[in-house]
């Protein structure tokens, strides 16, 4: 979750039922890592562009022969448990943060601290922290990431002389103007359940700061806290400016209404660019969600990182580590960012001259942020995110006046899950 999931539905069930227990390693194929000189990669890059990017990057690898097993994005995630305990590939695509730590702590990932000693200079300390588990070792190599921001069409804004808001009041005022001008002020869609998490994250970080957000995500704070209530109260105030009927709409549809100029702005990940025709991409711009609490300003954003890990059962560990080093190279990541304008390279040495203007703006946004969160479903337990937060946020969107009862329900379920 937390990234474009066009192929989310469907395949899931089939794979879940028939590929157990060795699931995503390519149902029916021989178990990975046959013999010396071969590294297998379990990839969730099932969409055409990321798939092509990975293939091109791997083609440039001079070491072992690499075999990529691509599995539908969602199926891969749903089956990760069984996959890692069964016969996983040597290297697999995964996410940083809590979701990485969770598997590292279960002993399902190989420590890659020695790789980090060689590649460490290419990454900022924040990225290293996002790749480290509680034991201080690294288990993950960041590849690309994408920031969450408010997106808009420059031409639509220029026509009506709108300016990016700096504060919540300015945002509300701008939304009011847009409504009078016949626009839907803020695009919104939450049929798939996860996009609204982005709104929750940014409101919580703007109101209560990054530290409280992360502490809340790790189950250490109470959801009935007045600070959490303030988030939902603020959100309820903004909801009148959001696109109505959000629970029946996918993010792709909301992005298209932004592209058609019906919506004024849209808070989403940079992958929103996928819904724009290439020649209109230059018209897409972004700004960071405005300040609410002056104490925190706009110092934090969501910018989920995608990367690679080595499974604990890897057969060709040396080959896998060499491949991880290759993936960490700036030149490898530039191949991906060039093919997919919705992503940015993680390596600090990556060449940003080839970036589109939008990528450039995204990179500036990230370098200006003091704290980078990974998105709700990557910063907390996956079971809490999917079985509690998705229904809870949808309930809030459907019935925004029922905040107290909602928060009590979340807290009760949180207590059961984080025991």
């Amino acid at each position, binding site marked *: 979750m937390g990234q474009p999931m066009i192929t989310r539905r469907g395949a899931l069930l089939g794979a879940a039922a028939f590929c157990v227990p060795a699931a995503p390693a390519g149902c029916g194929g021989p178990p990975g890592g046959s013999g010396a000189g071969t590294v297998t990669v379990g990839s969730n890059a099932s969409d055409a562009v990321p798939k092509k990017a990975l293939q091109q990057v791997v083609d440039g690898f001079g070491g072992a022969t690499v075999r990529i097993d691509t599995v539908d994005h969602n199926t891969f995630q749903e089956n990760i448990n069984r996959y890692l305990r069964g016969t996983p590939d040597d290297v697999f695509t995964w996410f940083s943060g809590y*979701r990485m730590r969770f598997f590292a702590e279960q002993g399902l990932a190989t420590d890659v601290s020695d790789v980090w000693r060689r590649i460490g200079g290419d990454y900022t300390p924040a990225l290293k922290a996002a790749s480290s588990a509680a034991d201080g070792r690294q288990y993950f190599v960041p590849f690309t990431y994408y920031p969450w921001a408010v997106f808009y069409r420059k031409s639509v804004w220029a026509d009506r002389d709108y300016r990016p808001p700096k504060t919540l009041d300015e945002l509300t005022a701008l939304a009011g103007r847009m409504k009078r001008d016949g626009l839907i002020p803020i695009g919104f869609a939450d049929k798939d359940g996860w996009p609204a998490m982005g709104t929750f994250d940014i409101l919580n970080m703007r109101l209560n700061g990054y530290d409280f957000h992360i502490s809340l995500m790790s189950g250490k704070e109470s959801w009935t806290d007045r600070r959490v209530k303030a988030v939902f109260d603020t959100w309820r105030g903004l909801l009148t400016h959001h696109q109505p009927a959000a629970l029946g709409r996918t993010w792709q549809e909301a992005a298209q209404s932004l592209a058609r100029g019906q919506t004024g702005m849209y808070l989403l990940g940079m992958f929103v660019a996928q819904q724009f025709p290439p020649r209109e991409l230059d018209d897409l711009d972004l700004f960071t969600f405005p300040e609410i609490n002056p104490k925190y300003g706009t110092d934090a954003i969501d910018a989920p990182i995608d990367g690679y890990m080595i499974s604990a059962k890897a057969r060709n560990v040396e080959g896998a580590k060499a491949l991880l080093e290759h993936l960490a190279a700036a030149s490898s990541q530039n191949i991906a960012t060039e093919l997919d304008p919705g992503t940015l390279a993680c390596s600090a040495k990556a060449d940003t001259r080839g970036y589109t203007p939008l990528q450039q703006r995204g990179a500036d946004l990230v370098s200006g942020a003091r704290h980078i969160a990974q998105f709700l479903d990557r910063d907390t337990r996956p079971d809490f995110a999917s079985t509690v937060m998705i229904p809870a946020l949808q309930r809030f969107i459907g019935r925004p006046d029922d905040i107290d009862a909602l928060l009590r329900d979340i807290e009760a379920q949180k207590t059961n899950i984080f025991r």
Partner: protein
Amino acid sequence: MAPNRRYSAGDRAVIAVGLGLAVALELALIWGPALASVALSGTDWDGIERPRWIGGGNYADLAAEYPPFWPAVRNNLLWLGFLALIAAPFGLLCAVLLDRRLRLSRVYQNALYLPVVLSLAVVGFIAQLVFSADYGVLNAVTGLTTDWLGDSSINLWVVMPAAGWRHTGYVMIIYLAGLKSVDPALKEAAAIDGAGEGQTFFKVVFPALRPVNVIVLVITVIEALRAFDIVYAINKGRNGLELLSVLVTENIVGEAARIGFGSAIAVILLVISTGFIVVYLSQIFREDR
């Protein structure tokens, strides 16, 4: 030991193998997993570490603190009610009408049966084309702005007819076959005795269809309890479209599976299905005696 004498050693071996295989398969594939689910439902297990026994804790959490649970139970029962009281009788009505050899009855028959060949996931997809708030046909034609699939107070009432659309055709074809096998002499006899059209149907034909009725009842219950794909295709069974089958999947399948918790929901589903099976079987045995 009198009856035993009738069987030779060979017969007994065949019976032992035949029965034994069936029993072994039944145990391994049906009762094994079912009992394993019951056992797992008493644990807290993420699928990786050792399961931790927590007794009835999952059930207590389910009933008291898991908001989608009661809506799912309610939706499953509504689903059953809709299929049994509206979709199935409508299928019967269609069958009766078609059985009277109307003009173009072949065309109607095919039109009504067509959805049955579609999987419910496809029906869910079609429902989205029709009912989507932004690009759906219904809103486009009527000019309404109703969020048919996103509004949790109405989406179930949109999805059930979509599921019923398929169920009606299924039931219709079964009744149509049943009606063809009803002896026309029965109807003639009723007519000679002065029974009207309605009386003939309800007092003579319908009772004669009893074996068909049982089959229809059983498939209706099965369809209602296993409903999954249509809501999953529409919004993954959330926000008004919760069903027990979805909650089981939602909790068990996934990155950090709550296998114990999901198993508890599965056990509830098992208990509900077992309830229907017991009622059904006891009826059958009583009639046969």
